[in-house]
């Protein structure tokens, strides 16, 4: 229904914007674009530095404690940057933890403050309700199945999808914004001895410090999977149109119809 609604609105939007600039329609608000790219840069920094930190102890545990002398929940079969870790390799990678930790927390601050700004703006302007919460007609299993079927057939998205998100996109973005990002922040904070002193219930409710670390790892993996699919979808849907929309804020409709 939202698709047909958007399709019905399309000529109107084109007509409304025609006086400003022919065949262009506004797509993303400036605040969405700025916070999107800051978040993207921060996430890449967090991912690279997080990987560097994991390399110093690529073993994972469940519960409060765990170390090279205790059984693992699982371990990543990679060499380590510490020779105290029984990695199975007879060489040690260079230690990159110093700057990795500095940058990890600086990027975390930047992404948390950016996320707060985005979240408050989104609530204030109705961005979440209007653009991310699935439209009324799209909230049925049938509507989701249709979108999934279109994806599986690699069907090129309808022109209206350049102006509005489909139901699957909306749910994915909501999960990223309201589930995965809050979880990765909370599980990360539960690794801070200072934070845990002040707010012990957070780490305790996650099942202990090592559980929090393992969860932080899995939530980060989930966010990375989202990033990979997100980028792949942008290539499939039309890389330059989508990039231009997220950089300039406008979508060129003629190009979209091509």
């Amino acid at each position, binding site marked *: 229904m939202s698709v047909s609604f958007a399709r019905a609105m399309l000529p109107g939007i084109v007509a409304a914007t025609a006086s400003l600039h022919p065949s262009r329609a506004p797509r993303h608000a400036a605040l969405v674009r700025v916070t999107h790219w800051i978040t993207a840069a921060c996430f890449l920094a967090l991912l690279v530095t997080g990987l560097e*930190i*994991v390399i*110093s*102890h690529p*073993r994972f545990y469940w519960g*409060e*404690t*765990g*170390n*090279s*002398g*205790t059984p693992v929940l699982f371990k990543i079969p990679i060499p380590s940057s*510490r*020779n*105290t870790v029984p990695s199975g390799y007879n060489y040690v990678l260079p230690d990159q*933890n*110093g*700057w990795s*930790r*500095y*940058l990890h*927390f*600086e*990027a*975390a*601050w*930047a992404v948390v403050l950016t996320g707060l700004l985005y979240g408050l703006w989104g609530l204030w302007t109705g961005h979440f309700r209007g653009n991310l919460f699935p439209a009324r007609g799209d909230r049925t299993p049938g509507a989701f199945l249709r979108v999934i079927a279109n994806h599986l057939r690699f069907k090129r998205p309808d022109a209206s999808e350049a102006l509005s998100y489909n139901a699957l996109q909306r749910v994915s973005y909501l999960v990223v914004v309201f589930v995965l990002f809050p979880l990765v922040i909370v599980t990360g904070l539960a*690794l*801070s*001895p*200072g*934070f*845990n*002193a*002040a707010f*012990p219930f957070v*780490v*305790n409710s996650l099942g202990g*410090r*090592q559980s929090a*670390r393992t969860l932080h790892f899995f939530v980060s993996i989930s966010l990375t999977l989202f990033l990979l699919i997100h980028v792949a979808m942008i290539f499939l849907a039309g890389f330059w149109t989508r990039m231009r929309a997220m950089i300039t804020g406008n979508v060129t409709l003629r190009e979209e119809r091509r």
Partner: protein
Amino acid sequence: MSKISRRKFITGGLVATAGVAGVAAAGSVAKRYGLIPPDCGGIYGPGETLTYAAQRLLTRHANAREFSRSMISKVPFANELAPPNDNFKRLQAGGFADWRLTLDGMVSQPTSFSVSDLKALPRRSQITEVVCEEGWSYVAEWIGTPLFEVLNAVGFLPQARYVAYFSIEPDWWESIDMADALHPQTLITYAMNDADLPVPFGGPLRLRVPRQLGYKSVKFITRMTVTDSMKKFGKGLGSASPEAGYAWYGGI
């Protein structure tokens, strides 16, 4: 330039000016309340300052979690150590009877303590977790003299802001602010799990700072200096850690 974009331009300018003024004002307030860490410079300085300031505002009096006896790790993990120097080996051969911990700097009575002198002071035991920046951890019972008892015994001066502490091993030193130095859980540790502190875990004396990462808990301490500024120590970044690329504040 259209009217709308001019309005946006002026609004943007005002917001930017207010932002810069706000950061400058926050900076001077933070400095006055001791919320700026010694390693606040460089590209990672802003993040480090935010972390330290936020934790000092929210966690100043918080206690590290203490655990029940049943949570004590069966396999505590002693991190790798360089071979001890000759000075250490000589003191170890004498059963550490001649080991001294010297307190100096901004104190009214600079004093040297033997391990048994420290044992005569009020004792505290706590079951806390050692948390390494690499990711591993263990829980142990730590027994020792709270640092604040020793600081009170030597009479630290009111302008004191940091306590720097040094290992018998060269280039191994750290410092903490007075919030951590006077914290009841900051312990000059001489015993662990009901026995003398084993050498691999820092015996005879290790400063345990359970609200910070393991690297702040320096092993084999022989000297502590009370000071109002870390500028005179090493490269002026607060401790040996920032000189090796690691953050001075280990609360995260």
